[in-house]
């Protein structure tokens, strides 16, 4: 019953990369309509936890359910398209234009190409659409990633230090995208080092230390 409307349910989850243990005994529940701010010092494992939630890294122990699906089972691939992740480093193809990058995402996800264009306008890159991603500034690349998630409308959105590289006018994008997901009944996990900035847009905060969430 609990898990029915909880987007993320982790019980004593552990994660390893190779032989290094990074997370241990992580308990975390994120319900629909909730946005959780996740804090923790450098190297604590925040990015790793986001990758586990995103099904990109398999937990090595514990029970983990995301969007009603067990992360240990092979069903986890079917929920990938419902999850959005904006990570530290831009995931664009430097040889393609900003528009081409977004259109590629649209084609794979089955979104209309017009949506890609609209999203690019929304993040303020309408006029820079033909610039190569490799020649775009850091902030422009981040904005394209926001455009991607605006276009794809994920049910579960994971943000890793979303404010970095965005200028003051673009910082609103973070609140905008978080609000959008929550309005649709989705959930957000937001990693940040900047408590003050994040506070207004999260319903709850959690701290990651010693490989576990407190």
């Amino acid at each position, binding site marked *: 019953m609990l898990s029915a409307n909880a987007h993320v349910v982790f019980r004593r989850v552990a994660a390893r990369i190779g032989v290094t243990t990074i997370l241990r005994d992580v308990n975390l529940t994120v319900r629909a309509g909730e946005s959780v701010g996740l804090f923790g010092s450098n190297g604590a494992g925040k990015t790793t936890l986001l990758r586990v939630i995103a099904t990109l890294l398999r937990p090595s122990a514990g029970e983990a359910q995301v969007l009603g699906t067990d992360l240990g089972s092979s069903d986890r691939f079917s929920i*990938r398209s*419902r999850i959005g992740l904006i990570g530290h480093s831009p*995931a664009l193809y430097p040889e393609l234009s900003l528009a081409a990058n977004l259109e590629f*995402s649209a084609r794979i996800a089955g979104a209309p190409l017009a949506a890609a264009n609209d999203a690019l306008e929304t993040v303020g890159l309408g006029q820079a659409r033909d610039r190569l991603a490799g020649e775009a500034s850091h902030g422009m690349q981040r904005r394209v990633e926001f455009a991607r998630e605006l276009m794809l409308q994920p049910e579960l959105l994971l943000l890793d230090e979303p404010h970095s590289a965005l200028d003051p006018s673009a910082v609103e994008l973070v609140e905008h995208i978080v609000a959008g997901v929550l309005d649709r009944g989705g959930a957000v996990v937001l990693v940040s080092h900047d408590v003050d900035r994040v506070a207004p847009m999260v319903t709850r905060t959690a701290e990651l230390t010693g490989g576990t969430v407190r």
Partner: protein
Amino acid sequence: MSNRFWPQAFAIARRDLDRERRSGEVAWVTIPFGAVALLLVPLAVGINQDVLSRIGTGMLFVVVMLFGVLTAVRQTNIETPAQRDAIALLGVDPVAEFAGRSMATALLLLAFQVVMGAVTVALYGLDLAGWEWMVVVMPLTAIGLAELGTLSGSIAASTNAGPALVPLLVTPLAIPLLLGSTQTVESITRDGVNLSWLVLMAIVVLVLAIVGVVTARPLQETR
């Protein structure tokens, strides 16, 4: 197979070809480099038209294979972890990814082979009898190598050794293709059409396609 299979496969293929067009790796590096390799052999072994025309076809396919492997694995090598994560979360069907990548690489390899073939004919003074069969041999070689490269790329992706391992995995496995292509051409020039080598190649291509399709999902699961 979902109804998004083909759109996804074509989107992947298109992305790879677009990236190649911008970087010009095959056009500006692989092709000239392969041509230089073909040029160097006569220079290094001493020029003797007789020996040359005898080893020509063989050298062609050795060069096609070595550089083909480099091209095939490059498509995997240039992918960053962040890009890999992003495409996974787009919900790409791993089988469509295999198909799309293989299509793009096969096209590039076909272009490479055509140019190398022309260079070999010009440099080694080959007898062109039976070369019409190249119309079948070259695409089979291209598809087979592309499938192998894609498959090995996804096996080696995100291991510790990473893409460094791929050529080691691909090259020995590509030997049946190499044998098939040289032997087809040789057998044709010697005894007329002998289809058994072509059939071997077709079987290899088919087996690789099946393995690629069947293992796409299990391989994805390890990421």
